[in-house]
């Protein structure tokens, strides 16, 4: 029975990961390209130059192809909370449902309404209203990202709520705490600005291809100029926000940070890993070295995590076993506390059921003392609170390295555009073309860090994924997993085929 539940949970996780990752192939481009198209069209309206209209329409066509499959892959995510994570939906629906509903009201309808104007309104509305519609699609797309990231931010850092033992659920106490949570804001800035980079790389890459093929050169250079500036500005936001994110993770999800850095033994003056190959044999609590090979920057991790070169950064061992000297309560102890909370909750329910008011009050008092560790009570032991280290570590480092290279690329492209010899820079244009694909890699890697790095939690410290899932039998989830895999892959092939064809056709003559 236990194996069956575990299997159902893991298939549900796999399915959510699959559908979310597929969806995220298309979202970043929608978020960024919508703004780029709005920029192009704004320039067209201001200059009255038909060349810019051609540019606008070319990128708009690619935007539309991407947008459709983004919508298709997105609908499932909302409903999956219900279909595959029913206990989650009940336990936190009182809080989590709100941003989803708000997303529908404030964001989706903007996109849905103005998308039709953007594509079919050229002859039906004024030029100004058309431009307004294009902007509204961009605003709507990014607002929708904001609301879903608020929801995600709340899962990483639950706030503004209290547990109601009678209903066995968390209830919202302060909507502003949820909507304005610093984690949510940080996630929004990071996810959207990094998506702008993906879109900038997309435009840069295809434009570079045109230059390499010596086609549509004027249009390509104009597109590149706008995209490179957009990408560079977005990169600055990502860099500033990345620093803030690291500090925030250190404060609120120290286990995730430890996994991101492969840090087992905490220390003061902790080093940041610039490059490293993890030791696959390394386990929690043993004395083996963490890395087979590594290059580290001394003190930098402490600086990022604590804003002090000599600050203490806890490692996985400290977070599992505890470190009294640093006032860190380990997961082992929290698991024990959590089990007390789970038992007290059951005791409370039972006492209430038989009308024993005193017994219920006593159980509730115990529960209240330990409820902060409630989620740990469902874990087998402290080590179960450790996320997959390798996936988190490598994804994080791939993301950071690629992000840094993108900045360099944007600067070089802008330099050569200014110099006027970009069409002769074959190597740079080739790099720009390949960077298009690496933009997607970095973006996906970022989500792997965020989501794999917080396992086993559906809600940080409160609800592990194992308790959150719908107990419907792994066979059903397996079946839908493969249906999604086949369906989304088929649609992806179609999307890429159409996209490549449109790029070959190029902007209208």
């Amino acid at each position, binding site marked *: 029975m236990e194996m069956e539940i575990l299997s159902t949970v893991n298939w549900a996780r796999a399915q959510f990961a699959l559908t979310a990752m597929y969806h995220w192939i298309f979202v970043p481009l929608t978020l960024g390209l919508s703004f780029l198209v709005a920029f192009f069209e704004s320039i067209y309206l201001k200059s009255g130059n038909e060349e810019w209209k051609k540019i606008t329409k070319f990128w708009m066509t690619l935007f539309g192809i991407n947008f459709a499959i983004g919508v298709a892959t997105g609908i499932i995510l909302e409903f999956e909370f219900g279909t595959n994570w029913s206990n989650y939906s009940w336990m936190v629906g009182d809080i989590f449902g709100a941003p989803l509903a708000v997303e529908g009201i404030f964001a989706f309808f903007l996109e849905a309404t103005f998308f*039709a104007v953007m594509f079919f309104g050229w002859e039906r509305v004024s030029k100004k209203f058309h431009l307004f519609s294009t902007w509204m699609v961009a605003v709507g797309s990014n607002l929708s990202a904001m609301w879903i990231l608020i929801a995600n931010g709340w899962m990483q850092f639950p706030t503004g709520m209290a547990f109601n033992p009678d209903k066995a659920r968390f209830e919202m106490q302060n909507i502003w705490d949820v909507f304005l949570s610093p984690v949510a804001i940080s996630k929004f800035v990071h996810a959207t600005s990094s998506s702008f980079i993906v879109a900038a790389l997309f435009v840069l890459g295809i434009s570079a291809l045109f230059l390499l093929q010596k086609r549509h050169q004027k249009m390509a250079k104009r597109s590149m100029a706008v995209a490179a500036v957009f990408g560079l500005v977005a990169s600055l936001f990502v860099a500033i926000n990345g620093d803030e994110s690291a500090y925030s993770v250190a404060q609120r999800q120290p286990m995730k940070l430890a996994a991101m850095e492969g840090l087992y033994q905490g220390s003061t003056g902790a080093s940041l890993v610039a490059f490293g190959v993890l030791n696959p044999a390394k386990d929690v609590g043993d004395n083996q070295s963490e890395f087979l090979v590594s290059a580290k920057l001394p003190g930098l991790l402490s600086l990022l995590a604590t804003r002090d070169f000599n600050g203490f950064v806890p490692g996985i061992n400290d977070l599992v076993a505890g470190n009294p000297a640093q006032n860190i309560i380990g997961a082992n102890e929290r698991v024990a506390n959590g089990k007390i909370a789970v038992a007290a909750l059951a005791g409370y329910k039972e006492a209430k059921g038989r009308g024993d008011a005193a017994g219920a009050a006593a159980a509730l008092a115990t529960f209240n003392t330990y409820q902060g560790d409630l989620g740990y009570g469902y874990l087998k032991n402290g080590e179960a609170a450790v996320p997959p280290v390798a996936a988190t570590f490598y994804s994080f480092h791939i993301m950071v390295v690629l992000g840094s290279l993108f900045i360099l690329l944007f600067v070089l492209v802008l330099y050569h555009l200014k110099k006027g010899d970009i069409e002769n820079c074959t190597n740079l244009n080739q790099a720009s073309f390949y960077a298009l694909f690496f933009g997607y890699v970095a973006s996906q890697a970022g989500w792997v860090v965020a989501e794999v790095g917080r396992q086993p939690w559906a809600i940080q410290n409160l609800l592990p994924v194992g308790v959150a899932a719908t107990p419907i039998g792994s066979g059903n989830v397996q079946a839908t997993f493969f249906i999604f895999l086949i369906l989304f892959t088929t649609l992806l092939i179609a999307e890429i085929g159409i996209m490549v064809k449109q790029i070959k056709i190029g902007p209208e003559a």
Partner: protein
Amino acid sequence: MIGNLDLATLQNIWWLIGSVVGSLFLFLTFVQGGQTLLFTTPQGDLEKNLIINSIGRKWELTFTTLVLFGGALFAAFPLFYATSFGGAYWVWMLILFTFIVQAVSFEYRSKPNNFLGAKTYEVFLLINGSLGILLIGAAVGTFFTGSRFVLNGYNSVAWQAPFHGLEAALNLFNVSLGLFLVFLARVLGALYLLNNIDHAPLNERCRAAAWVNFLIALPFLLVVLVSLLVMDGFAVDPATGVVSMESGKYLHNLLAMPMVDLLLLAGLVGVIYGVVSAKFLKKDCGIWFAGLGTVLVGLAIFALAGYNNTAFYPSLSDLQSSLSIRNASSSHYTLVAMTYVALAVPFVLAYIFYVWKLMDAKKITPKELDGEYAKDMY
């Protein structure tokens, strides 16, 4: 001010909001109706393209309304969300699969190098318009016919339905409701196309299609209405919350809520007038009467399911696990907060209406499909 409302009032308001969104969705299924008409009504590629380009400018509104319906239920009645979606797993998954394939079909159908070929995307549209709507109808049908599940003390759900919701599609009432919605969508689709396209031969075919599909929908509507009048229902004792079977419960609901009778009657008259005006009076604006009528009928159906101390998501396995708007809702705080948010809905409706009017001011003509922007067309 909203904060002073008591929990029961807020629950009533949110059932109404959910009903409005659900009913607007039913109206907007004219898109799905148009998708299935694609296989029966047009003659030649030109007419087919006219239809695709007409409903293709509205499909996202329907899609988004469905998503909002889910979001609103999640926020206001999370226990329903948690119970139904996981339990009726296959029904919801199949519904969602049909909407996934719909979402790409308009955009990809006529694009070169689309891998699957135009016909496949048209079949996707057909599946969404038929199976998708049928199953949504069957899922709504379970509001009256019940499902097999048990909630434990922690409100976590255990299902006793071996086919994970597909049982719903084996019930006469559920299937009748589903088929009624499929043919109602076709009626609405024909009326919308009639109003949105300027091409005489196709317009004539749309008039005929509205009438024929209305006639086909009638028997299914009759089964639903008669069943509602005679079937047992799931009554909730307002004082204790205890659920019991009550014979003629939905008839009692109709008698207890004259406003609902009025909605139902006005709605049906609206739909009938919409069809008659198109077929016999040769008017083009039938969609507005039939559309409004559909919304009113939808509101009546949801009111029957949820108001007047009725369990809207009944359990056949354990009556006391049944969900009502009282025990399935969010907390007072969340409902208040969300009610403030909902104040923005009229604003959203206003801009949708404005843009709709702007975009549909001129009818779509064959000329537009060949014009300067021919490359942009679906």
